[in-house]
């Protein structure tokens, strides 16, 4: 079988009742690599590590980061490029972008990093962007991996600007926040783009695993320039599109032409399963089988020198008289929907907190907890519950709880676990 991406679709309900009113239905799209993906040549990596070396990183945190960086160097191949930038009140290029030929030299550079001083992230990001653009690679994956444990002072806007500049040039950003002091709003804004995400590392011991997972993910990229095009039947509407695997993220969609929505997606990795949940308004229809939505996935397979590949699926919907319809809800769709609702509710709760509406925030968190219980995410549900109570009694949430909830609901905490549920 030729390499490519396969699409499986699942509707929340296989059959809808005939109605004179519009109805809501959910479509889960699972995408899986097909054919000999593993045999495609690996794409060269161009990786720049940006490490916060402010004084708060001293000790276990920096030691773990240094060890993890050493392991990355061990795993990189001869066609890969590596650079290392550190920052505190100033920024320094410790290793300028180069092919990984002399590992011992590179590791010596890593070993020399010492913690001291404050946190000025924009300086580090600016140098990183400079370094990562030095190698001339015609194809491959360029990514900045930023690790910080603190808040940057006064240069937030510049950080976001630099991140956007990098992303517009096809350079992804992985931001890793360690501990509880870092500014999640800043990192999330910086990574609000395809090929970028923020992950929460609760303890230093997790650093090595997270680095290794991230590297594995980058190494398994096989499709790039991935785009989803969704055409709805007349009267229908795409209300929202969310990625649910490998982690939850709202995907911005735009209706480019009448009834035709389009979304740009991240590079496709073979290491993760990808899945998307679509919220669709079905127009009033008479009994029968009707085409509902056409989904087209566009992508390039650089390893096979194939451009503009497409995979097309037409999803049909069965409409029956109400007395013949017994509504059975697909349990996988329900699981992801429950997780998605929890994620949306907590996001709105933090907005309520900002506006000083603590009761509303607490209510929303509680409901998020109920949804998480429903999805079987019991531990996270308890965390949510505790923070909701803390909010009501003390008027604020804890930094740690807030981060656990924000990133836990998205599946972006610590070493990520592959969720067996809902598959």
């Amino acid at each position: 079988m030729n390499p490519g991406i396969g699409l499986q679709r699942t509707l929340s309900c296989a059959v809808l009742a005939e109605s004179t009113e519009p109805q809501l239905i959910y479509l889960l799209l699972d995408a899986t690599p097909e054919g000999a993906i593993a045999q495609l040549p690996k794409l060269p990596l161009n990786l720049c590590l940006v490490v916060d070396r402010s004084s708060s990183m001293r000790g276990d945190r920096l030691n773990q980061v240094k060890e993890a960086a050493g392991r990355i160097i061990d795993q990189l191949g001869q066609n890969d490029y590596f650079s290392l930038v550190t920052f505190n009140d100033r920024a320094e290029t410790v290793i300028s972008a180069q092919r990984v030929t002399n590992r011992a030299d590179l590791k010596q550079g890593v070993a020399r990093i010492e913690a001291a001083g404050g946190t000025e992230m924009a300086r580090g990001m600016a140098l990183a962007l400079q370094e990562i653009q030095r190698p001339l690679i015609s194809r491959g994956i360029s990514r900045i991996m930023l690790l910080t444990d603190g808040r940057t002072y006064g240069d937030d806007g510049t950080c976001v600007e630099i991140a956007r500049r990098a992303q517009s040039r096809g350079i992804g950003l992985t931001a890793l926040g360690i501990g509880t002091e870092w500014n999640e709003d800043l990192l999330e804004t910086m990574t609000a783009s395809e090929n970028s995400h923020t992950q929460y590392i609760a303890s230093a011991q997790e650093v090595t695993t997270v680095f290794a997972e991230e590297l594995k993910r980058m190494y398994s990229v096989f499709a790039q320039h991935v785009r989803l095009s969704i055409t709805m039947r007349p009267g229908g509407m795409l209300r929202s599109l969310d990625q649910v695997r490998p982690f939850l993220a709202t995907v911005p969609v735009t209706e480019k032409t009448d009834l035709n929505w389009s979304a740009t997606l991240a590079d496709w990795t073979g290491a993760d399963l990808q899945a998307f949940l679509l919220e669709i308004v079905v127009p009033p229809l008479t009994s029968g089988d009707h085409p509902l939505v056409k989904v087209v996935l566009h992508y390039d397979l650089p390893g096979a020198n194939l451009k503009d590949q497409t995979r097309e699926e037409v999803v049909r919907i069965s409409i029956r008289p109400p007395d013949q319809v017994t509504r059975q809800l697909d349990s996988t769709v329900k699981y992801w929907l429950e997780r998605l609702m929890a994620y949306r509710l907590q996001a709105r709760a933090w907005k309520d907190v900002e506006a000083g509406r603590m009761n509303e925030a607490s209510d929303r968190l509680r409901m998020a907890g109920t949804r998480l219980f429903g999805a079987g995410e019991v531990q996270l549900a308890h965390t949510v519950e505790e923070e909701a109570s803390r909010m009501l009694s003390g008027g604020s949430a804890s930094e740690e709880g807030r981060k656990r909830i924000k990133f836990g609901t998205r599946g972006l905490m610590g070493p990520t676990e592959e969720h067996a549920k809902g598959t």
Partner: protein
Amino acid sequence: MAIICPHCQTNQFDGTIFCLECGASLLDELAQESTRQIGAGSTPTGGLPALNPSKTASIGVAITLVVVQSGTRLRLDPAEQLLIGRKDPAKGIYPDIDLGPEGGYDAGVSRKHAILSHRQGRFVVEDLGSANGTFVNGKRLEPQTPIPLRSKDELRCGTLALRVEVEA
């Protein structure tokens, strides 16, 4: 017909599974086939036993507990106290409301979890010192301290969520 969310009263599209406004489950609004009543005989999971007839003498008001996860409706008519828990024949525990068939064990429902009763025109719930707690609208109850229940409250035993519907 659009659905009205029982929790926040907003209009939602037919077929909505969780209210887009407040996140409440609208499952039982659409999954009619899983609706059943205690003692109605049609228990697809083999499930809930009929209430002890001596305890169901009508008092003119009824309370329904909707199991959020499955949409199962437990319509109760309590004249006295009803025990919520998990059946354990070995220990001789036969609760009036047996949450065992609803996944009670995994959800951490104790054998004798809580008491639901009707006092002076109000429904109240009292935790019996259960291991994993009884919650009303997310707030954990002190053991042996009765708390009034109102319509649309969320009652939770361990992690098993129930929605309260009171009808006069």
